[in-house]
């Protein structure tokens, strides 16, 4: 066929302006990628993109990181005349090699969204009114002072964000401390707090053990309550590569998810029975003698007492609890113990495993399964917790949490003094001065609330409506980058938001912080800059920190989070502690006085417990630069630099990164390589009464040192916890001697101080099996858990036969097109076009019986309320069973990203005009049960009961 050389000519000038944003109408002049010739000698496969900019006047490509999940994908923002006109792939980023999902590729649209909040706004007399920044900040600071003097500092709740950079997360935690309260919390509470508690109590650190890329080396990848195809699509790049190399990919999930569609095997089990299924697998492994006895003897503790519990969970017993046939459990056990080619197996999870009353124990059970076959601490093995937000690992590391100080230090006097000594170096502050800011409770008892865990975000609304163990309930709330529709029980939330005296929302979008409460005044919302308008570092799920450059200057009248914190601190009288002036930045730069580089250095200095110390801004930027000047430096196989000046360094310097000479520790507990090359051991963290330095013991007197091991060290090599507190030491001499300062301890099958030393199956609060509740009851009620009364047994017993009224199992989860509460993604045309409406997935058999057709309106109802949604008739969810002539145990699945409608009534009119999202829907969390994890107060969103009927 004849073809003609070029000249598509002037005919194809696509000049569709995508919005009224006039600067963007000149989209016809997109970037050409010349300059390839100069670097093509380096690589044929991935020609350079970044270096195109010099030859392309007016076009700049800026390296940045996506904000939509914790994989940490890199991309180039394309900037023309100071406006972001699109994105280009960053092919050399070892984590994603250019790949992104639908949310990531919509970043330019999300950044430039005309629906963003443009100026500070206040609700007065039922009307939204524009106010200036100065007026808004003055009003907020005055109200804070009023509340603090009238009700005490604990009556202000600070809800922080996992979307903020490490630096401003750290500043946020410090801000709460200077306001004299521990009532600060963020998404990690309702996301992976149980992972941190479960893993940290098993072997020392509560983080994903292996990097994303490392899954390429796995022999078997098992998903438990994780749907990476929707929640972490780019993780599937590595998982499917592993599968191509011969690995098996098994998905255990109540739903046939998109991940299950590409798996080798899919096992359906009942929501909330993870432990039973895991113990069924473990039971079969030990019965068949497939466990790694050498590993268990040398490196673990408590196997015998663990077996005393697990021996009762035979595959037949588990079949009755979980729906999974005993033969399938035996097959899973075989696969787990015999991955192909002798490679290790890794287990991955997300909210499906964490959001349960037994969340922490679910995670413990998974870690025990890893220990059983010795899969942990090896390339290709490990426990991979897929965290949710882009910086949720970083915000956990900087501890925007009510029970921790930055870097996972506790709330004891020693830990406070550690951080105050760091803060004192910046501006003078003493322990006594800070302690004076905190309230005493009970009054006159001399017990400072400084050392008491604060209110968790999952129950902050209860702390408004009930009587928490503090001087007064919550009276004012900061919603600083948190979608409240991800918190359970929307109606309770609404009542709480109507009762507090003031709500302060800080977010690029108005969100439901502005709109859920039906109140005429008392709401101020501040437009924060997006992550693409401020510099800072972000830590992804695999502990890799990347430097995120601003793509453009803050749009509209928005301001970086750090600037807002400092302005408030100035007004509250402790601004000097929040001023980090970087004279290299221009005076017009809002980050000049809150320099992320200086703040990161301060955090690094104090972060000995997890060792951010090697992650200096200079090293992070050098990695990025190296990635820009030379191609394929960092290997996609293990994220290590194979050439150039950074040879040996791991991408993102995963913590623990002991000092500025250390390459980072990509795989936790990988004890066959030297410490200075990224080796690591189980920590000697667990010490029952009677332990001494050098001899940590369990409650039954067993040494917690592994065979030939040693205790944690001071910098001079003596036994002690000095490695966590000696801020002036570099620990280089220990590293040189290949001594791990955190010790070489044993991982625990049995965690003696936890509510369940060995996890046991406990039925959810609302169980569809009344007959199992007696045998596997939930916990006893707790009088004071994170300052609140928490009933377990009482409400479970009361709802024992609830299945007669509400026969179906309610669970919730993700849609790939939306993120979190969805304020950003539901404001994006493309994503709304892909996923325009809220729905409930329902099995065809159930739908037929109820007379429901696909896309009909239905009500999903339980004790917390009801929601009106579309019926998505699909076999993804199960059809249940017929018991006593009634259909029960069918699963109803709800995506949780939606807001704007409550019980069939829209509250879209309560958004500030012009900021309404494009698509609304009922919030799935309207129906969330009042169940909470026993250790971390994670809400139980994945197992409740409901009924369905046609609307």
């Amino acid at each position, binding site marked *: *066929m004849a*073809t*003609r*050389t*070029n*000249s*598509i*000519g*002037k*005919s*194809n*000038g*696509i*000049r*569709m*302006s*995508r919005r009224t944003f006039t600067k963007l109408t000149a*989209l016809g*002049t997109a970037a*050409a*990628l010349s300059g*390839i*010739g100069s670097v093509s000698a380096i690589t044929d496969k991935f*020609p350079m993109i970044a270096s195109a900019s010099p030859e392309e006047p007016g076009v700049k490509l800026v390296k940045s990181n996506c904000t939509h999940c914790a994989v940490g994908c890199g991309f180039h923002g394309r900037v023309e005349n100071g406006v972001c006109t*699109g994105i280009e*792939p960053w092919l050399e980023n070892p984590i994603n090699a*250019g*790949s*992104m*999902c*639908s*949310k*990531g*590729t*919509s970043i*330019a649209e999300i950044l430039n969204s005309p629906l963003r909040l443009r100026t500070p706004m206040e609700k007065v007399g039922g009307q939204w009114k524009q106010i200036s920044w100065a007026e808004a900040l003055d009003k907020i600071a005055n109200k804070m002072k009023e509340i603090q003097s009238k009700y005490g500092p604990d009556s202000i709740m600070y809800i922080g964000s996992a979307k903020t950079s490490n630096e401003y997360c750290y500043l946020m935690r410090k801000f709460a401390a200077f306001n004299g309260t521990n009532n600060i919390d963020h998404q990690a509470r309702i996301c992976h707090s149980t992972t941190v508690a479960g893993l940290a109590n098993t072997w020392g650190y509560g983080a994903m053990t292996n990097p994303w890329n490392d899954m390429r080396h796995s022999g078997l990848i098992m998903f438990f309550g994780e749907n990476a*195809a*929707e929640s972490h*699509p780019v993780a*599937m*790049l590595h998982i*499917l590569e592993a*599968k*191509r190399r011969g690995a*098996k990919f098994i998905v255990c999930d109540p739903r*046939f998810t*998109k991940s299950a*569609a*590409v798996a*080798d095997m*899919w096992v359906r089990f009942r929501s909330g029975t993870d432990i039973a299924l895991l113990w069924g697998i473990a039971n079969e492994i030990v019965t068949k003698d497939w466990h790694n006895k050498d590993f268990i003897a040398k490196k673990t503790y408590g196997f015998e007492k663990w077996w005393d519990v697990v021996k009762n969970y035979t595959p037949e017993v588990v079949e009755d609890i979980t729906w999974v046939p005993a033969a399938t459990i035996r097959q899973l056990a*075989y696969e787990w113990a015999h991955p*192909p080619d002798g490679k290790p197996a890794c287990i991955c999870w997300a909210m499906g495993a964490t959001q349960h009353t037994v969340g922490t124990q679910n995670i413990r059970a998974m870690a025990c399964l890893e220990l059983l076959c010795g899969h942990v601490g090896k390339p290709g093995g490990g426990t991979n917790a897929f965290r949710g937000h882009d910086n949720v690992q970083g915000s956990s590391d900087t501890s925007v949490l009510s029970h921790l100080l930055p870097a996972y230090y506790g709330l004891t006097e020693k830990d406070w003094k550690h951080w105050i000594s760091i803060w004192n170096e910046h501006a003078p502050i003493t322990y006594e001065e800070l302690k004076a800011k905190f309230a005493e409770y009970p009054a006159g008892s001399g017990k400072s609330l400084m050392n008491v865990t604060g209110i968790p975000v999952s129950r902050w609304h209860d702390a408004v409506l009930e009587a928490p163990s503090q001087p007064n309930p919550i009276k004012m709330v900061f919603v600083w980058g948190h979608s409240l529709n991800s918190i359970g029980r929307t109606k309770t939330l609404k009542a709480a938001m109507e009762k507090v005296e003031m709500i302060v929302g800080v977010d690029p979008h108005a969100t439901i912080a502005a709109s859920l409460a039906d109140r005429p005044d008392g709401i101020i919302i501040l437009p924060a800059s997006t992550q693409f308008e401020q510099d800072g570092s972000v830590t992804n799920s695999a502990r890799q920190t990347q430097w995120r450059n601003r793509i453009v200057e803050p749009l509209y009248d928005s301001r970086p989070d750090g600037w807002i914190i400092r302005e408030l601190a100035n007004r509250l009288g402790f601004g000097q502690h929040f001023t980090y002036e970087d004279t290299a930045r221009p005076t017009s730069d809002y980050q000049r006085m809150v320099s992320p580089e200086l703040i990161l250095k301060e955090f690094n200095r104090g972060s000995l417990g997890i060792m951010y110390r090697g992650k200096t801004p200079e090293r992070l930027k050098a990695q990025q630069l190296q990635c820009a000047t030379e191609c394929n430096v960092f290997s996609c196989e293990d994220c290590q630099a194979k050439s150039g000046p950074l040879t040996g360094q791991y991408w993102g310097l995963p913590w623990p990164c002991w000092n500025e000479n250390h390459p980072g520790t990509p795989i936790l507990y990988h004890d066959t390589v030297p410490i200075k090359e990224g080796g690591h051991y189980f920590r000697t963290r667990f010490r029952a009464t009677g332990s001494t330095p050098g001899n940590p013991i369990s409650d039954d007197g067993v040494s917690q040192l592994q065979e030939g091991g040693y205790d944690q060290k001071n910098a001079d090599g003596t036994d002690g916890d000095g490695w966590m507190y000696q801020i002036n030491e570099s620990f280089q001499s220990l590293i040189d001697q290949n001594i791990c300062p955190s010790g070489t301890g044993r991982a625990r099958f049995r965690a003696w101080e936890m509510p369940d030393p060995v996890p046991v199956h406990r039925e959810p609060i609302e169980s569809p099996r009344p007959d199992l509740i007696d045998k596997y009851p939930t916990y006893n009620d707790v009088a004071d858990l994170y300052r609140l009364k928490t009933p377990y047994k009482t409400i479970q017993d009361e709802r024992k036969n609830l299945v007669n009224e509400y026969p179906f199992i309610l669970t919730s989860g993700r849609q*790939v097109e939306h993120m979190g509460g969805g304020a950003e993604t539901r404001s994006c*045309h493309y*994503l709304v076009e*892909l996923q325009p409406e809220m729905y409930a997935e329902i099995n065809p058999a159930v739908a037929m019986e109820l007379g429901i057709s696909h896309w009909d309106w239905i009500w999903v109802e339980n004790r917390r309320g009801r929601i009106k949604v579309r019926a998505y008739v*699909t*076999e*993804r969810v199960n059809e249940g069973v017929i018991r006593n002539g009634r259909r029960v145990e069918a699963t109803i699945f709800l995506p949780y990203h939606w807001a704007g409608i409550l019980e069939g009534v829209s509250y879209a009119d309560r958004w500030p005009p012009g900021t309404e999202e494009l698509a609304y829907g009922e919030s799935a969390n309207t129906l969330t049960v009042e169940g909470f994890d026993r250790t971390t107060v994670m809400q139980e969103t994945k197992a409740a009961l409901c009924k369905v009927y046609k609307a």
Partner: protein
Amino acid sequence: MATHYKFLNVIEKCINCGACFAICKDQNKVPHGTARVKIVTINEGRPGEKNIPVSCMHCTNPPCEAACPTKAIEQKVVKDWQNKEVIVVTVDKHKCIGCGYCGWACPFGAPQYPHHLPAELEERKGIMDKCTMCVEPFDPKKGEERLAKARCGLFCSTKARLGGDIAEIYPQYKEAKARSTMAWQERVI
């Protein structure tokens, strides 16, 4: 020597994340309600579920070109982003009369007929729109220099969608395909 630019989809790896759809919209400003690439799912919700990204495949012998009465659809040679001469199938929106014959001729359903068009074409509804291989819009500053760079292939979250020189992507396709099938049944305990 010009070479053909194509798409190949390793459907065993497609997870229906929608990246191709979204980046196409973002890059090419495709109007609402129109999709130059769309993921079609078969057997949704049950074992055997497969997702297939469907778009213009830039056929070697395009049936749409044969069907087009005004010669609006043509195969052309342009440069790609690696400075190689490549052949793609293009549509000249000024010649298109919106008859829809290409829609009948195309085996993939690729031609789209959006109602919302740029201002200068507003009076002619239903002008055909389809994948351009992200060939850059005409820029008078650069003259006739036009670069093709299919963003959907570069951004695909699992590298299931391969876009580019057929000689380059076909070996990648074969390699990816080799062991990506449902292997479970083959490996019996």
